[in-house]
């Protein structure tokens, strides 16, 4: 990790925190900090990615601004995280996309569906595109199956490759140790799935102000759970198609549609709530520079969920063709921009939790 101003500032703050340690009960960051006396750039990157941004330490801090020490861990670590996303992005030059990330994600969220719509209009017979379609293969009469598979599969494959390479670079770049036992992996997985560090232990976190609540945790769970359900819906649909020979559209009560329906609802609730939280939360412990990219990504996820649900609702009408094109465009755009967006936080935080679980056992 290069020695940026943010790294220097994070080190200054951690050296104060490490002499204080009042926050040891909040999350994994402070026990991980206490295992160290000196903080290399790699250590600070690890700690920053371990931070879930619950803001508990900021509101509890006797040295928070306007104190001269000006300790603001959530803001500083958020900035450092974003720098680490850029540093470890693959291919190497692409880290620059994390600058003005809000503009990038917004542009993708607009251009991808527009391009998809234009492409569909160019390819599909207008008589099919604007009329109600029903029966087996209805969707594929609008957008050919091979095209969906090529574009969606290709963009998803790229996202996996880029994020996998990022993960590898991060793991090496923060001086990781090899995984030798399953226990740390299980613990990290548990921490990821339960968001234990967002106020686990029952008290919740300071998601709006200095009062404790579990709102952010539950909204994130709704969004993450919804996202995974939608992913499961697609996977189930593919299994139905390839292995069972059951072609879409599926009935509303079928497994893929049910997974997608509830997943979409979860994503809508989660993204709407998280967008609302961002607008009402105390602005001091927030990294303003990153807000654009975060708002844009939440907006894109909201659009994907909303267009998916709308498509489900109107799939037997003449609006289906246009909605399908828009929805596919949004999803493909999402996959393409995913490795250069807030979405990578899941990867690096997961690795940071894994490293922390390893360190605890080594200590």
């Amino acid at each position, binding site marked *: 990790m290069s020695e940026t101003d943010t790294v220097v500032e994070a080190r200054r703050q951690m050296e*104060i925190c490490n*002499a204080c340690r009042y926050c040891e*009960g909040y999350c994994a960051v402070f026990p991980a900090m206490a295992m160290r006396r000196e903080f290399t750039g790699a250590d600070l990157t690890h700690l920053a990615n371990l931070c879930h941004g619950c803001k508990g330490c900021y*509101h509890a801090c*006797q040295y928070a*601004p*306007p104190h*001269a020490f000006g300790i603001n861990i959530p803001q500083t670590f958020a900035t450092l995280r974003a720098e680490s996303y850029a540093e470890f992005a693959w291919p190497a030059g692409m880290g620059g996309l994390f600058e003005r990330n809000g503009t990038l994600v917004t542009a993708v969220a607009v251009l991808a569906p527009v391009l998809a719509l234009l492409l569909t209009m160019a390819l599909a017979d207008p008589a099919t595109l604007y009329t109600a379609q029903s029966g087996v293969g209805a969707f594929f009469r609008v957008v050919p199956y091979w095209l969906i598979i090529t574009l969606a599969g290709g963009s998803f494959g790229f996202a996996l490759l880029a994020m996998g390479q990022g993960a590898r670079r991060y793991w090496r770049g923060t001086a990781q140790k090899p995984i030798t036992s399953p226990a740390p992996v299980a613990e990290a997985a548990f921490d990821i799935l339960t968001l234990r560090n967002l106020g686990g232990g029952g008290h919740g976190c300071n998601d709006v102000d*200095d009062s404790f609540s579990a709102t952010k945790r539950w909204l994130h769970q709704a969004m993450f759970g919804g996202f995974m359900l939608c992913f499961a819906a697609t996977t189930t649909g593919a299994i139905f198609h390839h292995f069972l020979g059951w072609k879409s559209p599926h009935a509303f009560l079928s497994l893929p549609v049910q997974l997608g329906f509830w997943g979409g609802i979860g994503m809508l609730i989660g993204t709407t709530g998280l967008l609302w939280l961002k607008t009402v939360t105390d602005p001091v412990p927030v990294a303003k520079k990153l807000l654009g990219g975060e708002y844009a990504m939440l907006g894109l996820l909201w659009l994907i969920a909303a267009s998916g649900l709308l498509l489900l609702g109107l799939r037997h009408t003449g609006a289906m063709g246009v909605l399908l094109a828009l929805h596919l465009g949004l999803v493909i755009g999402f996959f393409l921009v995913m490795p250069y967006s807030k979405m990578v936080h899941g990867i690096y935080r997961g690795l940071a939790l894994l490293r922390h679980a390893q360190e605890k056992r080594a200590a």
Partner: protein
Amino acid sequence: MPDFTRTWDVLVVGGGNAALSAAITAAQAGASVIIAEHAPKTMRGGNSRHTRNLRALHPAPTDVLTDSYLEEEYWDDLLRVTGGRTDEALARMTIRASQHAPGFLRDCGVVFQPSLSGTLSLSRTNAFFLGGGKALVNALYRTAEKLGIEILYDTEVQEILLEEGFAREAIISWRGFPERIRCKSVIASAGGFQANREWLRQYWGDAADNFQIRGTPYAQGTVLKNLLAQGVQEVGDATQFHAVANDARSPMCDGGLAMRLDCVPYSVVVNENVERFYDEGEDVWPKRYAIWGRLIAQQPNQRAFAISDSQALHDYLPSVFPPLKANSIGELATALGLDAAKLAKVVADYNTAVQPGTFQGGKLDDCRTQGITPEKTHWARRIDQPPYHAHPLAPGITFTFLGVKVNDRARVMMSDGKPSANIFASGEIMAGNILGQGYLAGFGMTIGTVFGRIAGEEAAKLVRN
């Protein structure tokens, strides 16, 4: 804008734990309450902002306290640190009431943390606030707001006007504007005077300029002085304060807990004349940290220097400001502005005097010196592994002992020996009744909560009648 024409049932002066515990209790009992906090909102809470735990009696383990801690042991601990300078009846009442302090605070939204490592290993006797004192203060203010208590920040109470021993109104500066608050009772919870350097100079002369004030700069003692000037009985030694060994590079005010240094037992400590002046290894640090502030305050220019080498570095908690480092003792002395030959001799004499032993950090081990004055009686290892380290030390004052005398109902006692008609006190401003000298970790917060609750209850009872 607050209504300054109104007459409030209770005026609470101050904004820390003792003030808020009083205000909340009074409001819960139905009184109308106004709080005058000198600090702005971001710096509210007095010294409570820098605290971490409170000491609570418990007959059995709780979710935040291990084992048990009973009255007799608690009382013995208090008797030992105060050297008998306490009021047994008040102290025992406080100790018994401390059992219910964590529950009261929890009801006010304070979150306690399950006992963890704890820098002083106090999980048996002390309940730790999750995130520390500022998180506690936040929860108390939130509760006070919900109860409809009027909270004035940036509001200094300059004078409490007494008519025949009866407080009727207070002259205040509200955001810079002169105003008055009319009230039926007053609870004084405005702390000690440790941040008032002029007052400290009366007893300490120029040395006071070199004292670092660990906590809030708002502890000016204005209300304390005003009450004492109007016939309230005083308690505690005005010249005395609680002080620890701080990093000499700390801010002069509000540096908080992280400025304290724990390196003394693993170092040799010299003053500006390059003379050792006290046994650095007399006892474990949790039992000695509080006397080192006073020791340093008595040295020339209130400065001292802890000298150690690279092997000691990991025996104490990290410091905010890194130690000065050098490859020879002479270089280190030059960096510190000390006489290099003298420091080299002090360290050489010490090294010669070190006896063989088995080093055990944190436990009274058998590593000691023989043949120097003063001896170092534990953790004495040769200082011979460069780089050599030095931490400059200065006294960091936590609080002053001077206070107003109170009775067991938190009523302020007048010089004629009678309790005041309607003035109560809680917190540091009256802690000297129980803590005549010394300190017991977390006991200040206990006194604040216990007397805050009593004061709030009594004030509400008074105005209801």
